């Protein structure tokens, strides 16, 4: 029994270390892609001078960020102020555990994998609230208030959309959801749940505070929102967490709607990565296309459109399953 537990533990530790490396690597790659995309859309080259075609730019940026002074504002609540970025980043590592990257490449197969992800993703809004509150800055507080209002609002249609998939598959286990889908695009859940997919995708933008829903950090009105007062790695952790959440959301979307690691010819992590990155590139593309929405518009989209649509989708799914 003890050996069994130890092997499990060892496996989990290896998975966590791999996840940390994966999160770090992803942050670097995504920052680079994001800046290159932004550049090319605006007909600039993007980062170009550090390394071949600027490939080392994110690394140098990271080093610069680490080299900066850690400042705590005078009126800030010191404990909460430094707890917030850690609280934002640490749960991220847990979110990757149940995601099936390949037939065997899963941190840990769980019966309630999707529930774990949704539950711990909620930590982020707590971290943002703490960050904004503890920095004793009105922009920070406003940003935090927005972040929470937004996260709470967009959590609901997202959950309803996930529930639609759970209804048709009858499980919350991400590996099982994947294996129930076929290799070819017309065998994926997106065909059965097109409305759910759209609702999930839009909510994902809201959940990850990405443009056009990036109101918690709207530069034009809030300087930087909840992370106004953060310097150095305090900001760095928020930044890494933001990109990690993007990857998680896109991975979950891949698993739920796009067949996960299943793909034509040979199943494997390459299909998973290709689909996830396609979604990430879509997110980047969208960010550099649409202007930021106003806050009332943001909530109107959610309560007047996404929520009724998600509910309708769920009811229709339930109806057809009973049929």
């Amino acid at each position, binding site marked *: 029994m003890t050996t069994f537990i130890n092997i499990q533990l060892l496996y989990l530790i290896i998975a966590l270390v791999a996840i940390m490396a994966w999160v770090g690597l992803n942050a670097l790659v995504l920052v680079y892609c994001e800046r290159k*995309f932004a550049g090319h*859309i605006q*007909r*600039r*080259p993007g980062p*170009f001078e550090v390394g071949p075609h600027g490939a080392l730019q994110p690394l140098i940026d990271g080093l610069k960020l680490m080299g900066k002074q850690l400042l705590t504002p005078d009126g800030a609540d010191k404990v909460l102020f430094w707890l917030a970025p850690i609280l934002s980043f640490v749960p991220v590592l847990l979110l990757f555990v149940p995601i099936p990257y390949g037939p065997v490449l899963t941190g840990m197969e769980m019966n309630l994998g999707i529930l774990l992800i949704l539950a711990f993703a909620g930590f982020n809004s707590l971290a943002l609230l703490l960050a904004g509150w503890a920095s004793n800055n009105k922009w920070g507080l406003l940003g935090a208030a927005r972040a929470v209002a937004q996260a709470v609002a967009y959590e609901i249609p997202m959950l309803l959309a996930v529930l639609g998939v759970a209804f048709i598959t009858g499980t919350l286990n991400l590996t099982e959801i994947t294996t129930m889908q076929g290799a070819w695009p017309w065998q994926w859940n997106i065909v059965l749940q097109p409305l759910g997919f759209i609702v999930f995708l839009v909510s994902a933008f809201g959940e990850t505070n990405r443009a056009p829903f990036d109101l918690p950090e709207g530069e034009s009105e809030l300087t930087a929102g909840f992370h106004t007062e953060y310097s150095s790695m305090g900001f760095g952790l928020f930044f890494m967490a933001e990109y990690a959440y993007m990857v998680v959301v896109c991975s979950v979307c891949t698993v739920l709607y796009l067949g996960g690691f299943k793909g034509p010819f040979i199943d494997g992590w390459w299909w998973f990565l290709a689909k996830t990155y396609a979604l990430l590139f879509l997110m980047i*593309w969208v960010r*550099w*296309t649409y202007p930021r929405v106003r806050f009332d518009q943001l909530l109107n989209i959610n309560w007047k*459109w996404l929520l009724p649509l998600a509910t309708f989708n769920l009811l229709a799914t339930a109806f057809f399953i009973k049929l």
Partner: protein
Amino acid sequence: METIRRNILQPIKDLWSLFVGLKVTGKFFAMKQVTVHYPRQVIEDENLKSYAGHIELVGKPKSPSIPKCISCQMCATSCPSGCIKVTRQKAPKPTPEQQKAMDEAKAKGEKVKKPTAPKNPAGFMLDYSLCSLCGTCVEVCPVKSLRFSNDIYLVGRSRDDFKFDLLERLRSQAEPGCPVSEKKQQARMTDGNHG
């Protein structure tokens, strides 16, 4: 019916604009970039020649290493920033023969012919760090011996890098194959790619 149209159908129709937006940025993404990678590339543009940098001397048409300048000091006196310093050439010391001739003339009571100083200046210093580029010196010059240079790539690492000896500059410009000579500069403009 009208309410449904306005509140439900119209917003759905409007969603199309999202795809239009994505198409626009997607098209721009695929387009050629407009950025010029400066140290590796320079731009080819006639307009760069109208750039007014620091002033420089204009050489005489027949001997380009000697400026048209007559050391009248008009530029130096009109300069509001006092950044121009022109020194006149001293009259050459008379040779023994000339001295002899002068003495003889003096003894005879005739008009003494002293050797005169050449008009072109002995030194023409510009402190560009003080210059406000007002162009008064260029306007006031009676012999049109001053003009604006048009090297847009001028850089320096210290204040002293902007103290120019314009005579020296003119001499080096007159030499064939010098880095700042006009021909070379023009070639650089048109060839558009230099190290």
